[in-house]
């Protein structure tokens, strides 16, 4: 399965699912929910955090969190 961590810069995808117990509630509140669109805007050096656009908001999360969010790419 693809996750947000697999996105390339500029790619868009739709969120499918994630484990509720490990994803921070704050992220859910900000609109990281199944069905919403996610786009990778910017990456950082040394595998640092990812700069995403989720639900119209700019959000940065670390790669380990991103790797838990399952996605389906938008063609």
């Amino acid at each position, binding site marked *: 399965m693809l996750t947000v961590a697999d996105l390339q810069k500029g790619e868009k995808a739709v969120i499918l699912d994630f484990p509720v117990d490990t994803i921070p509630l704050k992220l859910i509140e900000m609109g990281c929910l199944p069905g919403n669109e996610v786009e990778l805007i910017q990456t950082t050096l040394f595998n640092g955090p990812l700069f995403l656009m989720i639900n119209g908001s*700019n959000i940065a999360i670390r790669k380990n969190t991103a790797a838990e969010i399952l996605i389906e790419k938008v063609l």
Partner: protein
Amino acid sequence: MSDSTIKVALIGNPNTGKTSLFNHLTGLNQKVGNYPGITVDKKTGTCKLSKTHKATILDLPGTYSLNASSADEKIAIDILNDETNEFSPDVAVVVADVEQLKRNLLIFTQVKDLEIPTLLVINMADRMKAKGISIDIPQLEADLNTKIVIISSKLQTGIDEVKEAILSYNSLSTERCIAAEKIEQNSITNTELISTLSKLELKKVQHRETIIRYQFINDTLKKSYRVDKEKASDLQTKLDRIFTHKIFGYAIFGALLLLIFQVIFEWSSVPMDFIDEIFGSLADWTKDVLPAGMFTDLLAEGIIAGLGGIVIFIPQIAFLFLFISILEESGYMSRVVFLMDKIMRRFGLSGKSVVPLISGAACSIPAIMATRNIESWKERLITILVTPFITCSARLPVYAILIALIIPSERVFWFFNWQGITLMLLYIIGFAVALLSAYILHKTLKIESKSYFVVELPKYKVPLFKNVAFTVIEKTKAFVFEAGKIILAISIILWVLASVGVNEKFENAEDIITETVEQNGFNEIQEVSLQNKMFRYKESLKEEAEETGKTITPQEINSAIAEKTPEFRAAVIEDEIAALRLENSILGVIGKTIEPVIKPLGYDWKIGIALVSSFAAREVFIGTLATIYSVGSEGDDEEGNTIKAKMESEVHASSGKKVFTFATGISLLLFYAFAMQCMSTLAIVKRETNGWKWPMVQLFGMTIIAYVAGFIAYQFLK
């Protein structure tokens, strides 16, 4: 509280302009405090609504929801939900950003579930046109069961409508917007859920609930909210392409930091000199007007000099917070957090530690409070523990005087001089030790703490002057009052300790010294001291002659000195008496007691006293030496007035050698760089970590490092 005062609570997401609205409504009539028992800032203010009505406005912390997963959210729920709470509002005003309406409405639907009069304020109307946004207000009002006011905190439009709506709060709807039966397990209304469910179960409930709320919001906005995507400008994206660039992003941040520190020192020097002069003349004036004596010395050398030592930091602190608040207001700071996260993580810190570490250069107290938004407890704790290593402005005057004393001011390159380089090195050492100890703590602390990191990168915007100004005023005020209280208390305590004797030597000091001098004449050290006074007088005579353009012959100088010699002899004797008194006062005994401990670092008992009192606050060092030395030389001879001159001429009583040598100076510099000498910081750390364990770790850990560093430096350099 009178009937004509309406209690209002402002609530909303971060970055919605909630604080701007608060500032517009209350002006300068605001107070920042703490909720009892917890570390959440409580901001309140008053607002005049009409001739007869006032409102007290409570600015709740910016949160994304009322899900009670943080202290900020808990306090918001407690206040909104509990009618008996003293802050319980008559009306809740939810502030939302027009561009982020969907996300901002989540918390609105939660507030509505509490069934209190609610007003929805949609901010940033000025950007609607540029972004191609249109809203069908009557439709949205009907769907959300609320009154809506559109405002622009930037253009200050709609503020009066907000006031009117608050005034007629009785007519605001208290009905929910999502029917109660739609959310079976509602964690907002059913507060029992929070206490009965396990953390994971509760989170699952809240997750389901959030999905239902978002479904409602999506359906609602489809009817009344339109965005013309063509019009959405992409300036934001372009800015982010530069500011968060893998290479340029770091280069820009580095350049900005350099510029900020350069500017802070440059701009501050003028007002700082001015403040220094004012307090100097105030002290002189006090001495002239009041009768000479211990009390005048306390006032002039202790209290006024001590307060001057605080006030002098105001320019630097204000400038630093000016820049920090501009960076935060503009949205740039969260980009820095994003950029720095990975690098900081290597040292066990978070990207969010950057803000505290920068603020630490002004003062650790606001810096440690700025760690509250770091989610991981371990990362937050490490940030709190290492922040005091950053060179704060209280260390500056200590550094300044010691550097002036032991480092020559020769220029090395065309604009660097050794003194400047030393100061820069001290900053670098502080930062390096902070990172190093963070790394060690990261490797040794066994704390299970989930390390997650969620940062919103808000839209860039031009900072509002009012918001920046208020932040600067608030932070500076807090610093002055916190530190001012301590300095005042310490000056008085020191003065009392220095004026109470422990034995008859203190009482008979005058007789003892005069007798000894009458019988044996001056001893070697007293002779040296006399020669010093003569020499400095000679120099001042020459200088005076040069300035006035007159010539002065050696004969004239000698006769002038001869004329003054009895006065000098009396001054030397007086110094001796005062020194003997100090030695036999409580303060002297304290200093003498710790002298064996600090001797390997090159300090005498007088420095020891300054060191002990510095544990209250670092800047007390100078005030203490001023108090001690002024107690030690009663006569205010014109040549030895400045504290630096006094330190320079200070000699060991046993050997007659200078006290402040290069080795002692370096050792002191390092000691002050590392030691935990600030009661206010310890108090804040205790509050933020809920106990005495971590402040004690900090106190002993840092002081041991300081001792070892001072010891090594002195033993190698002496």
